[in-house]
């Protein structure tokens, strides 16, 4: 069987890629994708921990399901906002959305 630490390494890698995506991308949709990667890294973590540590107890699985639901809600709200900004300003580049500053 694949040892637990391998899953954790994959998850940490996914999370790091997600963080890098959020910090380096200029497109709001790509930033959202980075955030989704981070959430999926968490899910890999949760499911791996559940399988290896507490396979008799469903709490890890339940947690992962809740994360999925929340991620879906977040994506829906985020994309709606990006679309409404795009309609008004014809841009999804985060740096150009800068009316508020000071």
């Amino acid at each position: 069987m694949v040892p637990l630490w391998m899953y954790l390494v994959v998850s940490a890698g996914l999370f790091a890629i997600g963080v890098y995506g959020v910090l380096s991308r200029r497109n709001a949709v790509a930033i959202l994708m980075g955030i989704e990667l981070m959430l999926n890294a968490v899910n890999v973590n949760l499911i791996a921990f559940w399988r290896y540590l507490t396979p008799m107890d469903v709490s890890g699985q339940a947690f992962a399901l809740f994360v999925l639901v929340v991620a879906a809600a977040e994506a829906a709200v985020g994309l709606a906002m990006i679309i409404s900004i795009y309609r008004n300003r014809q841009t999804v580049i985060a740096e150009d959305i800068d009316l508020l500053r000071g």
Partner: protein
Amino acid sequence: MNIGTLENSELLAILPEILLAVLALVVLALDLIWPSSRKRELGIVAGTGVFVILALTLILSPPQGDEALLGGMIRHDDLAQIFKVMVLLASALTCLMSVDAEGVGRKAEYYAILLASTIGMTLMASAADIIMAYVAMETTSIPLYILAGFLRDDDRSAEAGLKYFLFGAFASAFLLYGLSLLYGFTGETGIYDIAAAFRFGEPGTLPLLVAVIFVAVGVAFKVSAVPFHFWTPDVYEGAPIPVAAFVSVGSKAASFALLMRVFLGIFQHQPQMWAPLLVVFSVATMTVGNVLALPQKNIKRLLAYSSIAQAGYTLMGAVAVYASDNGLGAASVTFYMGLYVLTNIAAFTVVTLFHRATHSEEIADMAGLSRRSPGLAMAMLLALLSLGGIPPLAGFIGKFYLFSAAVDAGLVGLAIIGVINAIIALYYYLSIAKVMYVDRSEDEDKPIEVPRPYWVVFGVTLVGIIVLGTIGAGIGFEWARQAALGLPGV
């Protein structure tokens, strides 16, 4: 985890949440039935409804002590009850102050989303499980993202919504990664089960430190602690004014409840790991907040930086939560959040009415407010003096408790930095007062109308500020202290 049949006591523990959900549906239904001429009353229904829920919660659903309810998901103790009262009060007052606010006041969906967010906040106050804590936090945040961007056609509101969303989702992903590690280290999701597993320093310093840092980033973002504060001024400036008020009080109060119960609760046996971190957060937050507030010209931005600084003071009390067993730390945080809710709502309500009459948010335009509307100027003055910590208003006694909690925990230096910051803050609070009372303007003959629902808001908040600062201080603090002593480990 065992969720079988529900006991009555368990249903009573989530009474406010159930009633809030019903109220949200009622408001949506009324929107369909009522003609558009009655839409103004939607906010009054929502606000009054939340007041009724608040009363029912206090009467029917007294705290049930230490028992974990609903499969260990929540605890219905005094701390939960106090923070529920705070967020319900914040929600009711926000509904009432939205009634005549431009663009949001006559929309049923606005109130429904606001109430949904309130449900999340009351659950944050009582969450005793990391799954519950995460779901409650997102139930709070996702509606707030929508509310911040509610004025879709207003570029600034849409931008505030998007920024709040991107930063918020980023920070909560960090928090979530930390929570997944906690589950992995212990195999448990209950806060006190995890804390018990960490009692003897399992699973080692480095993994614990990693978890502390990830969770701290998420929580620090929610309470807008420096260096995770950068979203705050932008969101407050762009969002509709009542929403800015709600984010600044409701979300902050619920986040402090979460900070004390979840973050500090989980790591209660490792104060050496988070105490220095919180001290750094506290010093940075109050100093940066106050210094950046000084040059602000926009009243909403100024209140944003002021709310950052207030979070900094409150963090002082949070450092002291597990420092001694007299409950002073948690009690001072609770008491301060209570008075901060009232004070900030009062200040934002003045800004709402001022904006409605003048379409301006510039501090300079508030010149002559004392002649245009002596009542509004007085309300603003009381709120500013309370924020600045002038006796006999509640802000003074609240700061006094925070500073004494810090001193009691042996953090004299921190308390001194706090006092210096409070003095810096007085400068910008009083310069607004000067603009309102001393500066003259050409519009002084145009009075500012104060509609009926706003009288209720001012009545509740201003009486609250004065009572909590004088005769009610002892009673309020004693309740907060009782709640603090109910925290396991204090």
